[in-house]
């Protein structure tokens, strides 16, 4: 072999090794600078190649930080149902094995199935094993046995906000319901059982409610409109399918409160499926459940949602999973769906911003019936 000749593979691996060696030496901030510089050099040399390991990512598409989520675990007491316990434990393993570790882990609501103390205690104990800090959100399954009393005693208030690395986070309780139980003389257990079902017409529609909206307005008065905003809600803060409560009745009012902000992303639970929407400039991403996948609703599916492949009922974990969210320098997010037993899927901010024109995730091979 000619001295000095390097095969494509050798060059590729050398570039790759140099890239990772370099990465280990730079902090995230200097990485961003480096990204800009190396992109400039590449442009100057006329060497813009689609492959190779030059640091050509522009700062806007770089991430500030990552958080992970576990959602809709629907725990029964351990002695009754070990199936759902196995699923949340799998999710805890997933987030604990993330390298680097996420800045925090969001629990997206519906920790319990029927809001009982034994279920919430079990969930709290399991989540203690998560290495990163946990942020809790309440779901209707946690709430309607005692109207949130025990959940709040364990995890704190149902609405709260915090700032993290220049992003304002809001967790809002969006699954209030108008009183359908007093007139019917329902016991708390009966009320809970009704709310736990999706396809009954007895319960009311989810809403943030007037008090919640007031709280949200108040919280946001002190936040600059240019500050990126990430909102956590259990129900989607838009109107997808009313009969199943894939729906927030006062979504329009809530969106009006969020609209003045330049970069708003809503991360929601409840729908147990890969779900993507954009209304004006607000981006919405649904979270996966660990317990079971819901089918896509017969109508109302947002246009830019790429459906996940149909779930295999013969595999407990198929169609379920957890995920992580990269908050980018731009203030928007890339949502990674860690679908168990399948390839993960990423729904990028650029896909949503371009209304589905760019970075389209792979289409489904087996859509819903």
């Amino acid at each position, binding site marked *: 072999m000619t001295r000095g000749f390097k095969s494509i593979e050798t060059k590729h691996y050398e570039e790759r090794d140099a890239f990772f060696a370099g990465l280990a030496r730079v902090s995230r901030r200097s990485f961003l600078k480096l990204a800009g510089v190396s992109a400039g050099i590449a442009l100057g040399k006329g060497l813009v190649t689609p492959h190779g390991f030059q640091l050509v990512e522009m700062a806007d598409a770089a991430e500030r930080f990552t958080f992970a989520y576990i959602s809709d675990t629907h725990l029964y007491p351990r002695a009754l149902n070990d199936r759902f316990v196995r699923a949340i434990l799998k999710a805890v393993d997933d987030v604990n094995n993330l390298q680097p570790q996420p800045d925090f882990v969001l629990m997206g609501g519906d920790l319990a199935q029927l809001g009982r103390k034994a279920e919430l205690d079990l969930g709290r104990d399991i989540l203690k094993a998560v290495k990163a800090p946990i942020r809790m959100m309440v779901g209707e399954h946690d709430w309607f046995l005692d109207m949130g009393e025990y959940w709040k005693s364990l995890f704190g208030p149902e609405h709260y906000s915090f700032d993290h690395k220049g992003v304002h986070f809001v967790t809002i309780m969006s699954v209030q319901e108008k009183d359908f139980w007093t007139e019917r003389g329902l016991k708390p257990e009966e009320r809970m059982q009704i709310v736990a*079902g999706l396809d009954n017409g007895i319960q009311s529609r989810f809403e943030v409610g007037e008090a919640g909206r007031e709280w949200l307005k108040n919280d946001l008065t002190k936040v600059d409109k240019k500050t990126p905003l990430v909102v956590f809600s259990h129900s989607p803060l838009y109107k997808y399918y009313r009969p199943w409560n894939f729906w927030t009745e006062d979504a329009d009012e809530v969106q009006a409160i969020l609209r003045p902000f330049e970069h708003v992303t809503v991360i929601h639970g409840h729908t147990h499926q890969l779900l993507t929407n954009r209304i004006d400039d607000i981006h919405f991403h649904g979270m996966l459940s660990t317990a079971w996948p819901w089918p896509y609703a017969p109508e109302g599916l947002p246009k830019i949602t790429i459906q996940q492949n149909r779930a295999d009922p013969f595999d407990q974990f198929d169609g379920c999973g957890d995920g992580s969210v990269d908050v980018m320098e731009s203030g928007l997010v890339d949502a990674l769906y860690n679908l168990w037993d399948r390839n993960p899927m990423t729904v990028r901010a650029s896909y949503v911003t371009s209304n589905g024109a760019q970075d389209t995730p792979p289409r489904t091979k*087996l859509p*819903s019936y």
Partner: protein
Amino acid sequence: MTPMTTRALLALPVLTLGGLVLAQSRGALPRHDAPASPSGNLTVALCDGETVAEVPGVKEGETPTPAQAHAVADRLMDEWRRKHPDVAWDGDPVRLAQALPSEGGPQGAPAAAERAKEGVTTPGAAAARGATAGGAGGLPSGPQGAVQEGHTYGAFAPRDERIWQAETEKFVKEGHDVFHDAKAFGGTIGVSCDMCHPDAANTHPETYPKFQVQLGRVALLRDMINWCIQNPTRGKPLADDDPRLKAMEAYILAQRKGAALEFGKH
């Protein structure tokens, strides 16, 4: 009271499951019992419950040859036609417009109409004409308002139809209740069918029977219902004639009203 009637009465009480009462378990179905022949020959009854014929040379308990069976069926039919001389008889099966084979998608129907205009008559084109002209496909239209008096349901009024409808809906409702209650179908871990299949979504009964790849064999809807009862909900499979299984099938099918039958679809 004879021992026989006591046993019958014991079997009568309806099957009750945690508050659910299933209509399917009520009473016995009507039977047509052919009276025994004094000669000891095998007797066969027509489905009208009245007309009876003997099979000569075949004793009760023996099996007639195919030729003997054809002969007795022909005699029964002849007898029925003799007793009902005025009833119209469809010599050839009528083709219904909705059963037309597709002729290349949405363009199919206009193409058939085109051929009909040119005087080319195919069964499909004739039926398409019939469907638009208001008569039954393939048959000449009668005078406006003339309706044949059917025998099938006897004399019935709109009120009867409402009762039939209500009975059917009750059966579907029973299926709904079993579907939504883990205890009712014997699930042991608190998981009911609706938790994954709200409004029976994603059960696609119209695609069965089909080769169920994961089972390695052709499955019916009930095979999948039982698979789900055994696995995700950890219960025991229901017998094929279990009223709960029948009611659940009724509920699932009712939710897919209007979906085209596409057996074998994946």
